[in-house]
């Protein structure tokens, strides 16, 4: 394979070797865990802040505005200023709320989004933990956040919050099916659930190109369903600020609100990263057939750039959806899932199984 020049496993391996020379195996594992945790915390915060800024800029450009431009050059530290503001805000206790659950909910939501980050392959050799059921794991933990949302809506003792939470519950439970089935399509193609394995299988072409039309269909279904799963417009019924003021986080303030806010953006990053990994080849560069020169140029772009550019492209598409479409009604939302997305993806997966059986894919 030609894309070996930016392999992170040499870097991580040398760190490991250096640490092993200093201390015993147990301590090495502990130190590495702390280092990885710190790295993820840093990445989480930076990505969250960047995504909030990106969202504002994207929506501003779509709306003929300039967006944040006051704090720092081009407003790039606007979100940091917002974060400081949110940190200093009062945490308002809600009368007759359930204090334990009320305080717990933002943490559940944010932990779920944090867990999913671990399994994503960011670049060649840069993956915290390579599960052999990676796809399954990411889906499982990212859908856990509905528990946090339900708890938040229930415990805030607000009628708007409760409606928002109930909507969110119905929505995530049903859209989980479509997300799963559309990912399953690629799992069938690749023959593995391991995320690194799926990426490796795309070395000679991304699944969206190799998998014919069924892969395109499942990609579109994945985009729609995952947008719904992370409660973003046009499926932001759980928040629905024109109907329910702010939905499940109406009563939250200060840093607890910021947790929900951050988790929403990180969930967006996670689904975009998952989509990029599964459909668009993850950190694999773009190769065209036998154009050796072109392929070599592509290999010189580091794999981490490939991964993040694909992910941010998908994030941009999801933002594009949000800033174009009106919100669906709850019954239409469920109709879309059960009458359109689910049957189509079921047929699609049968079709893909048939293709794979006949060996028609590349």
């Amino acid at each position, binding site marked *: 394979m030609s894309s070996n020049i930016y392999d992170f496993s040499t870097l991580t391996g040398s760190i490991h070797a250096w640490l092993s020379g200093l201390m015993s195996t147990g301590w090495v594992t502990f130190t590495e865990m702390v280092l990885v945790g710190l790295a993820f915390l840093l990445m989480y915060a930076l990505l969250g802040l960047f995504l909030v800024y990106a969202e504002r800029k994207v929506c501003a450009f*779509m709306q003929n505005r300039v967006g944040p431009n006051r704090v720092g050059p081009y407003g790039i530290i606007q979100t940091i200023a917002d974060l400081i503001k949110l940190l200093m805000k009062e945490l308002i206790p809600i009368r007759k709320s359930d204090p334990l659950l009320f305080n717990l909910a933002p943490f559940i939501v944010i932990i779920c989004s944090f867990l999913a980050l671990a399994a994503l392959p960011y670049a060649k050799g840069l993956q915290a933990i390579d599960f052999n059921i990676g796809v399954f794991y990411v889906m499982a933990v990212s859908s856990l956040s509905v528990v946090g949302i339900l708890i938040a809506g229930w415990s805030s003792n607000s009628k708007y919050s409760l409606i928002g939470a109930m909507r969110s519950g119905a929505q995530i439970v049903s859209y989980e099916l479509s997300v799963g089935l559309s990912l399953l399509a690629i799992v069938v193609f690749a023959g593995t659930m391991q995320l690194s394995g799926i990426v490796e299988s795309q070395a000679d072409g991304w699944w969206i190109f190799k998998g014919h039309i069924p892969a395109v269909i499942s990609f579109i279904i994945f985009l729609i369903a995952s947008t719904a799963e992370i409660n973003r417009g046009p499926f932001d019924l759980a928040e629905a600020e024109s109907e329910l003021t702010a939905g499940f986080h109406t009563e939250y303030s200060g840093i607890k609100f910021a947790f929900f806010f951050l988790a929403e953006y990180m969930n967006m990053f996670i689904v975009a990263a998952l989509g990029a990994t599964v459909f668009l080849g993850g950190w694999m560069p773009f190769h065209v057939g036998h154009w050796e020169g072109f392929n070599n140029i592509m290999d010189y772009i580091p794999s981490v750039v490939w991964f993040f550019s694909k992910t941010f492209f998908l994030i941009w598409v999801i933002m594009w*959806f949000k800033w174009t*479409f009106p919100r669906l009604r709850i019954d239409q939302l469920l109709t879309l899932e059960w009458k*359109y997305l689910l049957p189509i993806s079921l047929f699609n997966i049968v079709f893909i199984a048939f293709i794979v059986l006949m060996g028609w894919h590349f």
Partner: protein
Amino acid sequence: MNSILEYFADIFKGISSLWAGMRITGKYFFSPGEIVTQQYPENRATLKMEDRFKGEVIMPHDENNLHACTGCGICEMNCPNGSIEIITDRVANAEGKMERVIDKHIYHLSMCTFCELCIKTCPSNALAWGQKFEHAVFDRSKLTKVLNQPGSKLRKEAK
């Protein structure tokens, strides 16, 4: 069979209508020249309000510090919400006759609704619109203004 066709036609029509909307927002995303936002505090130097802009009521004074207000009180009478108060004084003029002059022409900007009746009805055209629009202050009392400048006098028309 027909209903199956309809089902797929629905999907197709739906997606194409969604794409039409996405084309609009996408087009504007890639054309930053269409941005209409005015960068307000930065463009202060070039920001020119229209001549007729109703910023506040002013009393124009000429270079000799003369104004045209005779203190007749018609503007005070016509103001719907009492934002004008006129305090007049009587002073002796050159011929020794007592004459009415304004002491203070008080204008409460905080109460003004910009209906233009004072300016419209003024018989001597002593009032006009000012183009200043940055009226924000920290104290409400600062919005009460005295329109005639200190030491100003009534402009005598040549007879």
